[in-house]
């Protein structure tokens, strides 16, 4: 039986005390264990940022790539070995800033990844510049007069890009987040979990105290239909006094990218021999040029 302990690592996180990443880390390990996935069946892929250090603190296959390139690396990894659960953990700067193009592409592609975005709405590791999800007017080192742009709403964008699993969690509720990750692990295709992650050092606005009273669970409303796109659109736009968390949109009707690639029909690419009938193939190919 897999337990959370299997995911323990001798390396201690370097996150600040109180950082919202601890909750995400715990929820992830719990969700994995409760889903019966052992560390060697899991590949954690991240980028660069505070949140992206998560795989370094976890016993599981892991790969800390470049800032912003998480989803591209993960896509290649997934296509190479879709027997492993490929899970991304990266910041909002990584995922929606530097990695914006990969984000939209991963969504449209419906590639089988669980994408946990540690959305603290700021650049943590580089010490507090505004991020794509920082609110208009947010004052930081690179926006001393307040950010001019309006924030990037990952959930609405994912919906617009035909996302198939669009959800939000938050660091203040590990149980709920654990549930969310488990749901995502069962999803067919790309599952976005945007996590409201308080950064206690560089973002004093979106604190636990600010978020806690606002957050509510969409799944608490039995009438909420996560299959209704127009309703989901409205829900993803909700922000302020009330902030919805949970699965805002979901469909299992769209096949994952890797289900549609002919070369993967016979199993994971990495398990296939380099060449089955080398000489026969070679001769056949050369015929094309005669």
């Amino acid at each position, binding site marked *: 039986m897999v337990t959370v302990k299997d995911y323990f690592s001798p390396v201690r996180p370097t996150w600040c005390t109180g950082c919202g990443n601890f909750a995400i880390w715990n929820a992830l390990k719990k969700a994995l264990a409760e889903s019966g996935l052992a560390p060697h069946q899991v590949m954690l892929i991240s980028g660069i940022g505070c949140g992206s250090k998560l795989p370094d603190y976890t016993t599981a296959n892991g790969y800390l790539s470049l800032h912003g390139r998480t989803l591209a690396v993960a896509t290649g990894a997934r296509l*190479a070995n879709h027997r492993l659960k490929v899970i991304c953990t990266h910041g909002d700067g990584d995922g929606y800033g530097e990695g914006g193009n990969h984000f939209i592409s991963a969504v449209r592609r419906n590639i089988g990844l669980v994408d946990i975005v540690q959305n603290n709405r700021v650049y943590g590791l580089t010490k507090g510049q505004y991020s794509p999800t920082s609110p208009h007017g947010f004052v930081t080192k690179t926006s001393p007069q307040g950010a001019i742009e309006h924030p990037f709403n990952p959930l609405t964008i994912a919906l617009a890009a035909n996302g198939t699993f669009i959800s939000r969690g938050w660091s203040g509720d590990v149980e709920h987040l654990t549930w969310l990750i488990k749901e995502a692990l069962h999803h067919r295709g790309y599952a976005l979990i945007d996590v409201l992650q308080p950064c206690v050092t560089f973002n004093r606005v979106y604190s636990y105290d600010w978020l806690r009273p606002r957050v509510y669970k969409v799944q608490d409303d039995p009438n909420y239909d996560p299959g209704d796109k127009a309703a989901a659109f409205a829900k993803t736009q909700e922000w302020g006094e009330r902030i919805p968390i949970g699965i805002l949109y979901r469909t299992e009707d769209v096949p994952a990218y890797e289900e549609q690639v002919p070369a993967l029909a016979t199993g994971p*690419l990495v398990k296939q021999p380099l060449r089955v009938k080398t000489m026969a193939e070679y001769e056949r190919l050369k015929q094309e040029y005669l």
Partner: protein
Amino acid sequence: MSINDMSFKFAGEAGQGVESTGRGFAKALVRGGLYVFALQDYHSRIRGGHNFYQIRVANHDIYSHDEKVHVLLAFTQEAIAEHLREIVPGGGIIYDPELQVDQDALVSRSVKAFPVPVNQIAIEEGGNKVMSNTAATGAAAGLTGLDLEVINSVIRDNFAQKGTAVVESNLKVAAAAYRFVREKYGDSFAFRLQTRKTAPRMLISGNEALALGALMAGCKFVAGYPMTPGSPILEWFATHSKDYGVVTKHAEDEIAAINMVIGAAQMGVRAMTPTSGGGFSLMVEALGLAGMTEVPIVVVNIQRPGPATGHATRHEQGDLLFMLYAAQGEFPRIVLAPGTIEQCFEAAYRAFNLAEKYQCPAIILSDAFLAHSPRALELDALSLDVPIDRGEILSDEELDQLTTRYQRHALTPSGISPRALPGHPKAIYSTSSDEHDEYGQICEDAAIRIQQMDKRMRKLETARAEMRAPLQYGPSQARLTFLTWGSAYGPLRSAVDILNAQGTSANIVQIMDIWPLPVDKVVQALQGAKKLISVEQNYSGQLATLVRAYTGIKVDGLINKYDGRPMSPEYILARLKEVV
């Protein structure tokens, strides 16, 4: 009368099928037992402009076109204006009489006019003007006395997909044009072709050979973003993807492409991304990622003229030094620069071995001339002799035996750390683009930094020992030694043949294994040179710079070219007069 030694030039607008017709004709020649080398020239536009396809034919293997044309197949008036001066005395032009041709200009150059109503023949015999190109090839066969059957066999294959009716019409058109020319011009033309009996041979371009080499090496994942002249490789794999079990991904951009390749390679799959210089520029950061995390990937840069967009469809070798130093920091990489079709295959085939043995990125640096120019090759010219060597990958059985925590970046004398592919319960590890310790954990310790740097850089020395000596061509003692790389080798080889035939002894040192530079082998190859001249399709003589930087040997002269058009033997010989 000359037999089996001539050049054809098909010339017209984009959209007129210049390339496909030329290639079809070249294929027919190969099937007829002849050797051919074909050169393509086209603009970065989809319709209009002026393109050509030039085919040199011979009885023996040839590595280059030259500047003499014997038969011009002109699809437009501009084609004649453009190429008349290239036609040798006694050569001729095949064209539709609908074109206005200045006969005096032809006469003054002793060029013969061969008007052939290809449009009319196409419509009358085939029912469609699009077959006028088929008529032109039939006419060319008729004029040179080539057996029409070799043309017919290509028609049958090329149009098979479109159904028997189309095949039949084309055969009729070709035959009619052939007859027309035989009847009208008989055997008057001095340049003739005779088919020969040979074993079947391929007509294959550098890009095709490269793709084939990669596939045979077991490449199972190709991601890329279209960029001329690299895209044909991506498209080749897309076409072969299903049948040969290769995942081929046209990605959102080049950054995604290389990072996908890294993700796939990290999982244990042989993976590659083809591009051109501009796309490579976008891949630079990820190159360092592969270097740091020791992931074996193959990156193919098919060079074209820069800077920036430059000349999208043309030729240059301007990226050599860029390949060596691209990306921040220092890490081992392999750079192979093929100079012939065979070497394109070989480079692709070897690159995966080298990348996996040394767990680092391997770059194949080819170029547009090589990419686009098919040559006739014997079926056994592309050798699979080198066994596939995946380097130190721990088997499941070996991993089962592990008793201590797996060290992805273990310190070893060779610098190579045995790899475990992710997924085994005994070898769970995480690694990072941050400097890390032997386990792959992020680590800022100074001593460990030194160990890991030393370990990685040691691989470069290990690899250097197996990098191959430059290829040498020509007499070992010579008055002139040419240093070269990439596709400049082809025209240079022809030029050197001419020089030696004329009594000026000359030889070639061609470096294909560029990095890590096998310094001793290069010094050995160059040290006897009496007069050393670098021949490169770039402005500054990049190989000469490289060789000077690492061997101290300075060339005596540089023959360069940077107008987007490949060198010719004639060009080299003319420039040689200036530099010596």
